[in-house]
């Protein structure tokens, strides 16, 4: 029941605002905002949340020695794993001592691989793929990468020009990580997939139309075949 509380709230708000003169985008934004807010308040009502916590000691503050960073202990993250977060590979491409080269050595897929690693496109301000065709593409890429164990990829997330540059940098990471997670769920080695966000810094279409924006909300792939490297 709780699971659907946000949905009921969203439908309610959509109904209440259906007679307003606002445009559809505004109604949708309002609905999303209110839906998430009510969902959050519902969780608080069921006492699934705590408001604050005390960092008790320097040890707790510093975290376990083996961790690269000190992770959050927020209960939210343990509970809401519908949105899986899978840590990035520890090995940094191009770093001293790394077996993975920098992005200069990764290439845009050519010939037969070009049709496999096609760009994937998103709706405005979203990170979820909308086309079933794209999920087939993901499955095909995953199959290829599982069979070709020496393949490493960079997934770069891009945005259109309509939001601010800084926000788009963060949104680009979200898009790239969504694709990375989908590939990992289909069995690809997480250490073979790197993400990169360009936000709206590198548009593929310099136009300012709906069509141009749709082309720019994308992820692109670059690949590195380790066995082929000299």
């Amino acid at each position, binding site marked *: 029941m709780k699971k659907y509380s946000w949905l009921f709230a969203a439908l309610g708000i959509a109904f209440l605002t259906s007679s307003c003169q606002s445009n559809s985008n505004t109604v949708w934004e309002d609905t999303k905002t209110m839906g998430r807010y009510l969902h959050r308040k519902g969780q608080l009502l069921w006492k699934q949340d705590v408001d604050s916590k005390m960092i008790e000691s320097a040890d707790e503050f510093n975290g376990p020695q083996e961790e690269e960073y000190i992770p959050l202990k927020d209960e939210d993250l343990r509970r809401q794993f519908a949105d899986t*977060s899978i840590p990035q590979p520890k090995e940094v491409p191009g770093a001293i001592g790394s077996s993975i080269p920098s992005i200069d050595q990764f290439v845009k897929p050519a010939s037969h691989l070009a049709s496999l690693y096609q760009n994937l496109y998103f709706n405005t301000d979203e990170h979820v793929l909308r086309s079933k065709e794209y999920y087939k593409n993901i499955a095909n890429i995953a199959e290829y990468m599982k069979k070709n164990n020496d393949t490493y990829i960079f997934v770069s997330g891009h945005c259109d020009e309509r939001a601010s*540059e800084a926000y788009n940098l963060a949104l680009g990471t979200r898009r790239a990580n969504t694709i990375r997670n989908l590939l990992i769920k289909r069995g690809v080695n997480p250490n073979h997939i790197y993400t990169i966000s360009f936000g709206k810094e590198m548009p593929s279409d310099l136009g300012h139309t709906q069509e141009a924006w749709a082309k720019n909300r994308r992820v692109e792939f670059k690949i590195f075949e380790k066995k082929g490297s000299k």
Partner: protein
Amino acid sequence: MQLSLLFSFEEKELVVPLSTRSFLSTVSVSPLKGSSFSEEYLAELRNVLLVDINRNGSCFVEARDGTDFHVDLELTGKGLSALVELKRGGVTKTLGPYSLCGSLPSDRRILHTFHDDLAQIITGKRGIASTRLLFAIQFPEKTPQGYEWRSEIWESDYDGENTRQVTQERSYCINPVFFSSEGEFTKGKFMYVNYKKGQPKIYISSFDSPRGNPFLSLRGNQLLPTLSQKGDLIAFISDASGRADLFIQLFSRNHGPVGKPIQVFSYPKSVQASPTFRPDGKKIAFVSDKNGTPRIFLIDTPYPGRDVSTHPICLTKNYRHNTCPAWSPDGTKLAYSAMIDGIRQIVVYDFLTQEEIPLTRGSSHKENPTWAPNSLHIIYNTVDHSSSELYIINLKQKEPLQITSGPGKKHYPAWEPTRGPL
């Protein structure tokens, strides 16, 4: 309105509080004459001073008798000095000498320093004309395959003059940040985000060196760094965990990063961006779309022994798509970009009145506000179809002035902080 000017010689300075005045002071400035330089050159230098005065948010130049202040410029050899007079009290103070050299870039900076000292006399607060800016310029570079986008970091005076490229990474560099305190690790250096190896990482580089080095050991993308006013904390966005999360890193100006990065806030299905510290470092404002449209949230900065709230409070509610927050150095205001009637404008949130006040208008999108050390001036960049330029505006004179031009997209401005008391 009856003006009540309080005029005193406290600490050998003329202090004129302007809080009771509803308008700016007027200043007249004598011509600059001397035999060491040409008349045209001296007129150009004088003009630099006039522009500084007119844009300082406290006074403006009038060519008439009866102004509040008169500045009598004197040039003896290459030494510039001035007699500053409060007309109504007959009180005077001398400035200088400042040694001019005949090179316009250097002499412009001397005039900026002269102005800042003059502002100290007239307003009781040092001016900001001698501070510098860092920003990124994006440009397309031709390659055999077509073109690639490049971006390098540049510095300039506060008025956009004396520009100089400070990185030559042949890469994509954005988000420059001045260090707010200088120590063994940070002296003569700045940080920025560099895509050189693929994933964007936070780099540190010297102003005298074309290339920098990464200095945070953390996997994934490292984006949108900011520094606390004391210089002891860096906040940034990273997807090390697989999400775009808010992180902080303890930092020492002498030794660099201290300990491991700390994940401060993460939220499923949401994006966090653009952190900025309250001047005391105890709170961070940042962007999150966890409730729908991006808004500015406040969260406590974690620290040992502190009772910190792990749930951020939404700060901005009046407008949609609130991004790029920047906390003013005096802590009383937050500038950010918000969508108003379909255009991203700069809005100022006043912590004292809790009002959200639009600062800009017009048809260009505006982003990335950065505050001057005086918490009065803001520089931001526009984002148009054909160009992206830097503009300066102040809270008292809301007519923006374009300070950059020429090829390339100028963005991500950062204003040099004052090191030490203003």
